[in-house]
């Protein structure tokens, strides 16, 4: 049974993870923009969505499975991934989780139950359903959680997996991060994305008899509490579940080439959004999950500004050390491109 003390402890560790994700992603953007050849091509960061990843992963047990997408850095860190091997993977170094094979699109971390990271929209949901199917067939109580963006609902693969997970009551949790909310939803009323005909994403799941929830993706407490309940119920055979986490997109997102407007996040902006670049002010006041959590912890008297700034300083240092670790790590040899095409023998 959680006590008030454990909740505060959980929130403190959640805050640390969220800040760590923010600071690591800032390093990723800096590496991409400072060097021509480190992150070759486009990439996607998790700034502004930290509460969803961290809140959801807090609810998972050590043996559960997690599937993510092209926007995977934050999910892997939320699940407990170390920033060093994550950044090393993103810039293709041999100390990365996949020894630099996958890069930003395919951060995979086997020890965290992240077994395949598809960068194809809709690729992950059927595989996550398969992990849930496998847990059921093997008689374990493992749960499979899959993160995906709202665009996945435009793909047929989603609907096929939704149908089967519902028919077979799989222990699958489909976490849809709808980060199109501000662009279309708020301007045009209830319409959640620019290219999807349903008015409410959750209606699609409900129509397939899948229990659906909508959660404020900027609030780590809401996400954490909802997911703790659903993960437990999925273990008991009550799955699958669909969640739409509504996220107000970070103004620096800019599609596939993110930009740090006004530089790395400053804690002064959190305490007083009016001191930030005008393009960031509304987002910092209403939607930034890190700033919202910081201010609420102070208002509740759970932490002081100074304590929070110490957590941030620690996260910044971890991210800087991770960057140095990655930059000083060796690159794969050219001929290693020919390694690991097929598993040898008939090992079982």
């Amino acid at each position, binding site marked *: 049974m959680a006590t008030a003390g454990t909740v505060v402890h959980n929130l403190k560790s959640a805050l640390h993870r969220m800040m760590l994700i923010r600071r690591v992603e800032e390093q990723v953007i800096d590496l991409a923009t400072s060097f021509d050849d480190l992150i070759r091509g486009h990439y996607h960061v998790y700034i502004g969505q930290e509460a969803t990843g961290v809140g959801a992963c807090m609810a998972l047990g050590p043996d559960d499975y997690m599937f993510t997408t092209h926007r995977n850095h934050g999910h892997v860190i939320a699940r407990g991934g170390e920033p060093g091997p994550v950044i090393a993977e993103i810039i293709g170094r041999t100390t990365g989780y996949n020894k630099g094979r996958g890069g930003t699109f395919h951060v995979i971390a086997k020890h965290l139950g992240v077994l395949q990271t598809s960068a194809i929209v809709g*690729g992950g949901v059927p595989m996550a359903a398969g992990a849930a199917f496998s847990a059921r*067939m093997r008689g374990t109580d493992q749960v499979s959680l899959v993160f995906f963006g709202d665009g996945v609902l435009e793909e047929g693969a989603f609907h096929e997996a939704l149908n089967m997970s519902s028919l077979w009551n799989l222990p699958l949790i489909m976490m849809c991060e709808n980060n199109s909310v501000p662009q279309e939803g708020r301007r045009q009323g209830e319409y959640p994305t620019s290219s999807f005909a349903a008015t409410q994403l959750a209606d699609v799941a409900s129509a397939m008899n899948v229990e659906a929830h909508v959660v404020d993706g900027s609030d780590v407490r809401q996400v954490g509490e909802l997911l703790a309940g659903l993960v437990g119920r999925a273990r008991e055979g009550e799955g699958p579940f669909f969640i739409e986490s509504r996220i107000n997109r970070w103004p620096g997102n800019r599609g596939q080439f993110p930009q740090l407007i006004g530089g790395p996040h400053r804690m002064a902006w959190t305490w007083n959004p009016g001191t930030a670049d005008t393009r960031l002010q509304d987002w910092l006041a209403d939607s930034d999950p890190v700033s919202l959590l910081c201010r609420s912890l102070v208002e509740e008297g759970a932490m002081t500004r100074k304590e929070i700034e110490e957590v941030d300083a620690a996260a910044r240092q971890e991210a800087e050390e991770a960057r140095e670790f990655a930059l000083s790590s060796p690159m794969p040899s050219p001929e290693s491109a020919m390694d690991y*095409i097929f598993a040898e023998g008939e090992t079982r």
Partner: protein
Amino acid sequence: MREMTYSEAMAIGIQEALAEDESVVLIGAGFGGLRGDPAVWGPLRERFGDRITSPPIAELGYCGIAVGAALTGLRPIVAIGTGAFSFEAFPQIANEAPQAYYGTRGQVTCPVVFHMRAGIRGAGALQHSIAPQAMYWNTPGLEICVPGSPADVRGLIKAAVRSNNPTIFIDHERLHPLVGEVDESTGGDIPLGVADVKREGSDVTIVATSIMVPRALEAAETLAGQGIDAEVVDPRTLVPLDTEAILRSVARTGRVVVADETQKSCGVASEIAATIAEEGFESLRAPIKRVAIPNVPIPYHQAEEDYITPTARHIVEAAEAVCR
């Protein structure tokens, strides 16, 4: 030794695979095809019903489920049905399963078997006659089995299940009634990547796969009547390909016909012919001939279908040409 059909031998192989490892599961119920013999497939369903899942008509979804299951400790055999249906699942077969091992530098394996019945079956028309093995051969990370005899289908289905790699397993529709000897006193194991010389000969090598194996053996009998002694080499698996066995035979005969029922352009015969040309050119005493489907879709009417189907007669003509 017992004589049995290809279909029965495959059912025996699948039963043996299920019996030897409880992580083996079947997704899909259509292994026997539309006319699956209940006497052959009934006992399998009875004995292993709890490991057989019949999915909705959702090839992409259930192949993805099989991939996810294979990443997490199961060894699924997926019955996709007709080979062309696998195109519906192409993103999972070609763009997820083969990347798992390579993408993690050997940390994660994806031991899934994608089983399909393919080829010109008779009246399959435009969309139910396609043999996709050449397309999958262009996808690194997939193993490909194309067994052409009852003993081979039994042995190879077990090897495919045991393999830690994703495997495309293709039966030709017209092979299912084929009768051959199977030794049930042993496991009949066949490793992947080992060709079988189905008939020894000294004048010409016929490299034949899948349905072209019985057609090549028939052609070899006809050729024997004309004084041409043909050797029939069946690679049995395209990936891995037993290049050495093919080159060994070509080194003896110096003349080659490659017979395969996929389209001629970038087809199975093309890749085998190119490999022989590249690595065995000195052995050749005549240009290589390919027997394959011309580069057309598959028509419905029997006269048209027969016209484009590679047969024993085409192999005989090609062998005569290279031996001239």
